[in-house]
């Protein structure tokens, strides 16, 4: 009777071990299967992904404020020390911007008049949505942001995302109340660009570091350090002329670009709806802007 009991206990123990081991193998297999599915059929998991992101966005939004305040403490100490200096600088900048506004307004009118004379097709209008950044993918494999605005605010996949000084990236997933932005520095980011001074065209690629690289660019003597890099508007995804950065370094077969926007300091971003008439469905929201907080 006893040996039977002992054998039974042994069997239970080894079954448990087997279950533990098979649990390990099962979840390893499941993880690999999910990677394969998301690579072969990305649409299959995209909906579930955006649903989870929608649910998690309020939680991330709640925690992102204390997280932001950690860096705000350091920033505010700096601000208090430099407040007088900063105030004087801002006054000067404000004066200069007001002058620029008058100039731009005159040039805009002149431009419209000349376009009319030449019978040029007008550029499509772009609406915008301003959204709070609630997530910043940490780690060396991917560079994305999560913003608290989605389909219900007019954010759609493919739209350009900018901050005050230039391009940030593009929307790659849009849920109901959240969207994922692929940063210009991500390994998979490719943006058609033009160099403002030389008018050379190329593709700007990210490499998961702070700098960007221009591919497919014919390096010639007209290229120089400091040249402005802007979107070319080719492909229709981005409006033309959005500043991205400047040429920082020219190597033998490589041009390094430093982006204008400090991507790790972003608290709010603006999503541009650049609908090309006849290609993308019109949302007829011209002139409307949303502020999502």
């Amino acid at each position: 009777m006893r040996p039977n009991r002992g054998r039974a206990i042994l069997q239970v123990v080894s079954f448990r071990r087997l279950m533990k081991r098979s649990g390990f193998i099962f979840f390893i297999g499941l993880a690999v299967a999910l990677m394969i599915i998301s690579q072969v059929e990305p649409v299959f998991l995209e909906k579930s992904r955006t649903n989870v992101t929608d649910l998690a966005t309020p939680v991330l939004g709640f925690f992102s404020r204390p997280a932001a305040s950690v860096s705000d403490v350091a920033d505010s100490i700096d601000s208090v020390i430099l407040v007088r200096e900063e105030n004087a600088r801002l006054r000067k900048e404000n004066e200069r911007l007001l002058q620029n506004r008058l100039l731009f307004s005159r040039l805009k009118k002149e431009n419209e008049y000349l376009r009319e004379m030449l019978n040029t097709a007008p550029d499509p209008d772009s609406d915008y949505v301003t959204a709070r950044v609630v997530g910043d993918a940490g780690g060396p494999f991917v560079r994305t942001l999560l913003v608290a605005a989605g389909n219900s605010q007019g954010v759609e996949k493919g739209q350009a995302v900018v901050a005050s000084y230039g391009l940030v990236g593009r929307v790659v997933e849009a849920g109901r109340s959240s969207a994922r932005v692929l940063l210009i520095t991500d390994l998979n980011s490719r943006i058609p660009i033009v160099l403002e001074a030389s008018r050379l065209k190329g593709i700007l690629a990210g490499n998961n570091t702070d700098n960007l690289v221009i591919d497919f660019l014919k390096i010639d003597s007209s290229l120089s350090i400091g040249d402005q890099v802007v979107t070319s508007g080719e492909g229709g995804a981005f409006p033309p002329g959005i500043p991205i950065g400047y040429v920082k370094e020219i190597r033998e077969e490589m041009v390094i670009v430093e982006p204008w926007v400090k991507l790790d300091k972003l608290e709010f971003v603006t999503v541009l709806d650049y609908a090309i008439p006849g290609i993308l469905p019109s949302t007829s929201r011209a002139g409307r802007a949303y502020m999502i907080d």
Partner: protein
Amino acid sequence: METGWVERGSIYLRNLMPFMTILILVIASVLPWHIPGLAPVTPAFSLMAVYYWAIYRPEKLPYIATFTAGLLQDILSGGPIGMSALVLVLVHGVVRSQRSFFHGKPFLVIWWGFSIVAPVAAAVGWSAASIYYGLLVPPIPLIVHVVLTILLYPFIGFVMTKIHNTMLARA
């Protein structure tokens, strides 16, 4: 009757503590900290917690918990779905199988063990991401990420020990 219910709830919550700590660290790793240069090299906080609990309380950390936490990390970070889940479950399984070696050992041995586990986990993640994207992920941010992960382990290990001692001592 009421006390029994409260007691059961308390035990249930304490049993969930390892999973909850990993979940909190997953959320912490995708928050925008606005610290210049940190985002591409953010330490693998969840890996530190998985390593700790796989040594000290593996019975309170089923594979499904590590898998779920990894999956959530993949979903929130926008990375390949399944990549972090694969790395965390793999580390969980390997460390769990070696836990008898680590038991009763001083902290320096535990840290030494983690300094071997972290680069291996990063290498698995790097290989998986490179195969997934079909191109080589730049290794420099990865190296900095691994060094930061190893250097910060004592801090996270200390917090985990405090949680372990106060909340799981009687569970």
